[in-house]
């Protein structure tokens, strides 16, 4: 990326993402402290639930969306070697998303939108919150368009050539996000906004929850794919090896895109408004979408093994020790995969149909998604930031050892934070409470775990400070870095010509459409056939 304006543009995205991240971390520390009840002056459900709502929105919507857009522009321009298509259009997307973020943040911080990032009608937030969330998503659609157009232009200019893997995956993510966001867009545009504006009195909560579930699972893959991209194209190179299999990486991305979408009902296992048969169908799909992640684990670990052996690692596991553990990208990959194993297991339990009743809405669930999202995903976002910051700012990374320390702290903090959550979940503690008021012997066992979580939260906060400080110092005071080129890992077995299905998405869009009609068609249609009695708006 030689165009400094484009680099600046990507950096703007990243700083908004990581600014939101920093603020959300502060809120996270407050939340573990408040929840433990050890400082009585902090106890306040009003502040707690405003904080949880803001933490969720900042982490899940703002950090991710801006990071993914910025990373996408970077990958597109560097892997395709072409400038951003229609910069004005891309900038419009950025400003719309930013405006939406600010609009949503105001009511959130004022406690006027304490409805959590899942919206939860019939509790009604300030209308600005819904408008802001909508604009954030609309802004991201601009990015999707740019990605799809750039890929199309490149393919026209390079007929028959294989699309570079990082761009193939980035476009898969853009298309995935367009499909994904449609569910929540329908909910907000046709249900929540007319209702918040007072045009209609009531909202069908069953339908709203079904539409949100449409978005709620694949959105996780929208967040995860940039992490997988880094695992496939940056990590093997950083470890000193090659990508074990390029084709299988493409197969994994396509499978995630196709199977990630029609499976949202595993968020509704405990809901009364959908039938068990549909839940089982989505449950089977949920297990199916585990396959590409299992394949990814193999490809990435095998790539590491190739690199470790090239560095002199011997025996069955000697290559692990031979890896460059001090390299932030490699270290991040190892820690990220470790958390993927633990968090993935939690996900398997959540996905297991009736067994969901054992853990549904317990502390197990935030334990699971903090391992996967705050663990696997964010750790790779850190590594990407460390990798790209010198290339974006033209300054050498301020401190590589600080980066590795930061990654270790994040890992340790996340394990200390999320292990108690899993235990508490099995002991029956609900998620989303600001204090434990149940007068029951069963709840006595919860206390020590709450205290451990404070330690985890503080370690994570320290890690977040190190991360932001390192990036800031790099940009402000780093030594000049002349080589701004970025390299993507080559495949061990070079890819030749690929069939169209692994070089484009036309067929897959058709498959997705079909699967979505099968999986969501009747479950949505039923609300128009049922005699429903919809509730009016409530405060909180």
């Amino acid at each position, binding site marked *: 990326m030689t165009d400094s304006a484009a680099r600046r543009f990507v950096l703007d995205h990243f700083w908004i993402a990581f600014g939101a991240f920093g603020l959300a971390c502060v809120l996270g520390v407050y939340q573990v402290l408040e929840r433990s009840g050890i400082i009585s002056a902090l106890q306040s459900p009003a502040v707690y639930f405003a904080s949880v709502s803001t933490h969720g929105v900042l982490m899940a919507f703002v950090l991710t969306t801006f990071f993914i857009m910025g990373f996408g522009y970077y990958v597109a321009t560097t892997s395709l070697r072409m400038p951003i298509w229609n910069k004005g259009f891309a900038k419009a997307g950025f400003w719309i998303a930013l405006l939406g973020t600010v609009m949503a943040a105001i009511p959130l911080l004022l406690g006027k939108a304490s409805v959590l990032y899942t919206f939860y009608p019939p509790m009604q937030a300030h209308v600005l919150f819904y408008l802001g969330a909508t604009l954030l998503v609309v802004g991201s659609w601009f990015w999707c368009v740019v990605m799809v157009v750039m890929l199309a232009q490149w393919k026209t200019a390079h007929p028959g050539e294989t699309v570079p893997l990082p761009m193939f995956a980035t476009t898969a993510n853009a298309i995935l996000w367009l499909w994904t966001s449609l569910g929540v867009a329908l909910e907000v545009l046709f249900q929540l906004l007319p209702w918040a504006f007072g045009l209609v009195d009531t909202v069908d909560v069953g339908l709203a929850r079904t539409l949100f579930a449409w978005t709620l699972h694949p959105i996780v893959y929208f967040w995860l794919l940039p992490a997988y991209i880094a695992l496939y194209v940056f990590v093997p190179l950083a470890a000193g090896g090659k990508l*074990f299999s390029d084709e299988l990486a493409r197969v994994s991305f396509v499978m995630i895109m196709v199977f990630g979408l029609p499976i949202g009902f595993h968020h509704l296992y405990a809901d009364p408004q959908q039938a068990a048969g549909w839940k089982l169908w989505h449950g089977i799909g949920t297990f199916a979408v585990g396959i590409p992640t299992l394949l990814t684990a193999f490809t990435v670990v*095998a790539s590491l093994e*190739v690199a470790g*052996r090239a560095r002199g690692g011997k025996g069955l596991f000697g290559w692990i020790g031979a890896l460059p553990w001090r390299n932030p990208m490699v270290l991040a990959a190892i820690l990220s995969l470790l958390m993927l*194993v633990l968090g*993935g297991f939690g996900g398997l339990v959540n996905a297991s149909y*009736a*067994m969901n*009743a054992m853990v549904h809405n317990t502390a197990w669930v935030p334990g699971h998604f903090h391992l996967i999202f705050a663990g696997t995903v964010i750790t790779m976002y850190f590594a990407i930031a460390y990798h790209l910051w010198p290339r974006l700012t033209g300054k050498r990374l301020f401190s590589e050892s600080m980066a590795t320390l930061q990654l270790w702290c994040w890992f340790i903090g996340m394990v200390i934070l999320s292990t108690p959550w899993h235990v508490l979940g099995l002991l029956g503690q609900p998620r989303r409470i600001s204090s434990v008021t149940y007068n029951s012997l069963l709840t006595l066992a919860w206390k020590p775990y709450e205290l451990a979580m404070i330690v985890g939260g503080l370690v994570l906060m320290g890690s977040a400070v190190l991360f932001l400080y390192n990036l800031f110092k790099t940009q402000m005071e780093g030594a000049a870095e002349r080589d701004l080129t970025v390299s993507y890992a080559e495949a061990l077995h070079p890819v030749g010509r690929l069939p169209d299905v692994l070089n484009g998405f036309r067929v897959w869009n058709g498959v997705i459409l079909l699967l979505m009609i099968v999986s969501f068609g009747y479950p949505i249609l039923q609300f128009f056939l049922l005699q429903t009695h919809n509730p009016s708006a409530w405060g909180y």
Partner: protein
Amino acid sequence: MPPSSRPHEEPRDDLPIGTWTLLCLIAAGMTAAWLFLYFGVFLPRGVVQ
């Protein structure tokens, strides 16, 4: 990438036996833990329908 670079790779690269062993161990552990939770914790807490 030109195919000529392939002979430089060690033959073991094509058989990541360490990865295979490691992942099989993890898969076995996950399966055992899942079966324990399903049949040892979930079902004894009461059949649900």
